[in-house]
């Protein structure tokens, strides 16, 4: 790294731009091995500039990441394939940063960011989805670690994952929100079994994960024993940001795919469909602008509650648009590309046919908190409406009806 730019006074757009250029000058993307390049980028603090120094960042404002990314992209640098490691980047990393010990941060963040290690999220269980705080997977103290037994479900990427963030019950006698603990789980442990779980698209993007006396050293606990819910809140908050909040160009998402279909196949179109297309196109563009506005609020240091609107709108639009696309295709919409059970590495909305998009989009209003649960959150936290009457808050977890 260059010595000329080391003081924090230069962590503005200009400073970061020149820092990135100097980095590129000594690490030519054309001649450097991809993994090596990414590790060097992490070490130079250009991975996520808002992270602390030594952990892939520089303690710079988060909004300035785009400056770095633009420079790197222009130079043809490889990226870390964010779509392949979304759970690590969007959920595990901020949680480790917030609750991890120094050793945990040093151990996990670098290979997480470079994609050398994929992460998955062992939260949901057959009996605990929206009501995540009712998880029953038991972790019991044994020596300097924990024995974990239970079942997780709908776990995306578990088949590729090296590590998992795991929410467990450590005290069944405490009320549900109080008796949980949060761990980093080694997916190669012999007590961890991953089975593909086929979904409506035919493929198995997610899995069932059986934990059968899996061993977790206490040094892989995140946060205090019994504090698991608080740690999980951080993960979930970041999940919603990760799902809805990516900056996009106009027509960057599903609206672009459908618009192109319209442009190519006007024969399948009529006046009523046109108005529907335009209404959805307009809403997609407005949602994109709302995301941009949210980014500006964040950059100005006053994040609004608008983040929860993003995921709600994203789910709604991807479903409406993909449905419209199938109709536009007419006869071709009656065919599907492939029902065979595959275990993909990433979710690729644009790489497959319209039928796949239509089906996969159904998950957008379920994964990462359902749209109904999001509406509850907006109603209660943003609009200040009274919470639902609840009977499960003060009862020991083990006595709850299920």
């Amino acid at each position: 790294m260059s010595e000329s730019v080391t003081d924090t006074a230069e962590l503005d757009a200009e400073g970061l731009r020149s820092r990135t250029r100097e980095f590129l000058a000594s690490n030519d993307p054309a001649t450097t091995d991809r993994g090596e390049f990414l590790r060097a980028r992490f070490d130079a603090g250009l991975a996520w500039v808002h992270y602390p120094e030594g952990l892939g960042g520089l303690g710079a404002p988060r909004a300035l990441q785009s400056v770095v990314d633009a420079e790197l992209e222009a130079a043809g640098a490889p990226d870390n394939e964010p779509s392949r490691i979304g759970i690590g980047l969007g959920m595990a990393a901020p949680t480790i940063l917030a609750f991890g010990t120094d050793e945990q941060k040093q151990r996990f963040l670098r290979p997480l960011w470079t994609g050398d290690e994929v992460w998955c999220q062992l939260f949901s269980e057959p009996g605990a989805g929206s009501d995540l705080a009712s998880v029953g997977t038991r972790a019991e103290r044994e020596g300097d670690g924990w024995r974990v037994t239970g079942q997780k479900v709908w776990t995306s990427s578990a088949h590729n994952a090296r590590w998992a963030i795991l929410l467990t019950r450590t005290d069944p006698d405490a009320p549900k929100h109080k008796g949980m603990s949060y761990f980093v789980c080694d997916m190669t442990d012999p007590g961890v079994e991953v089975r593909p779980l086929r979904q409506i698209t035919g493929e198995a993007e997610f899995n069932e994960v059986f934990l059968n006396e899996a061993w977790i050293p206490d040094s892989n606990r995140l946060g205090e024993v019994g504090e698991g819910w608080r740690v999980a809140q951080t993960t979930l908050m970041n999940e919603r940001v990760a799902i809805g909040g990516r900056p996009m160009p106009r027509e960057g998402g599903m609206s672009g795919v459908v618009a192109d279909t319209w442009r190519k196949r006007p024969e399948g179109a009529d006046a009523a469909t046109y108005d529907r297309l335009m209404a959805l196109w307009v809403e997609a563009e407005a949602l994109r602008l709302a995301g941009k506005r949210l980014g500006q609020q964040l950059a100005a240091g006053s994040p609004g509650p608008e983040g929860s609107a993003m995921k709600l709108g994203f789910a709604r639009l991807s479903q409406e648009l993909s449905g419209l696309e199938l109709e536009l295709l007419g006869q071709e919409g009656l065919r599907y590309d492939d029902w065979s059970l595959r275990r993909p590495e990433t979710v690729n909305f644009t790489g497959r046919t319209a039928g796949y998009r239509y089906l996969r989009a159904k998950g957008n209003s379920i994964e990462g908190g359902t749209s109904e649960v999001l509406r509850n959150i907006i109603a209660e936290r943003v609009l200040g409406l009274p919470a639902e009457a609840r009977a499960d808050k003060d009862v020991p977890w083990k006595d709850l009806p299920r």
Partner: protein
Amino acid sequence: MSPNLLYSTEEQDLRASVRDLLTDRCPPERVLERCEEGETGDPALWHTLATQLGATSLHVPDELGGQGASVREVAVVAEELGRFVAPVPFLGSAVLATSALLGCRAGQQRDAVLADVAAGNRTATLVVPLSSCVGGSFPTAVRAGEGRLSGSVRTVADGASADCLIVPARGADGPELYVVDAAEGRVAVDAVTSFDITRPVSDVEFDDVAGVRIADPDLAATVLDDAVRTGAGVLASEQVGVAEWCLDSTVEYLKQRYQFGRALASYQALKHRLADLWYELVVARAAARYAADQLATASDDAPVAVGVAQSLCARVARHAAEECVQLHGGIGMTWEHPAHLYLKRAKADEIALGSPSAHHGVLGPLVDLHPAP
């Protein structure tokens, strides 16, 4: 430079002073009272807005007596006026007529009218049907010959309060714009019963009236189209204000209204409807801010931004007002509750300056999405 979709500090200050004034002088009860007494406007409030807050001269350049601000600030005022359904001729005079005057070439006549309108000494309006949409063909309802105008135009916004009329007319060489003094004997401005009680409309008739030409055929069509586009963009912000009032007041009402032994706001079916409205408002505000910004900077993307904002915000405001009435129950159906003022404004605004589907038709080709053959 990337468009600023937030409200600047100056814009927030402007909003605060307009809101203070309206809270004091234009609460919904007062607006209702006026409607009952058959008064269609509030000239005293309009005068204060113009002379004390300078709300009529925001996007007029300094040298013409304006404040050298931009459409962004105009939009902020519109948002607040929408929130209060304030019965003032802001849209007709400060937005439509002023934008048209700004588009015309500088000259003694134009400058004098513009300075007067900006200062609030005179009130103007643009003589087109309020339902006019950007991209339409130049109106032929009024004919001009040797400086004299004849013809009639129906459903003109803010006509009755206007001292001075900006009139698109077809002359021998093509489209032209004229300024006509509304007090001329051969001008008839007939206030008709407006669906939107707080925004009066009139039918205007010219019977061989003298006018001053302010735009020639080389310019007139563009000026008119730009003014109507600016109007539609600013109207989107008004719609955001309308929607916001509807959501806020419904939230407040449902929190304090008890049925079946609990606050209605605790029923999930209602909470979800309010959450959906909130979502709509979030996207509407982003679209409206973007349109105001693009108009302010005369960006190439302004036509797209306005099409997006107007078609979306129109629906959102109308939906919010309809939900407001429904979720107030019987009270929402009564004349004495102000919800109907907002419903009438919102529904009329959906038609005003182009319906959503009219805007879709204009917007589509701009983004390479053409109607079905």
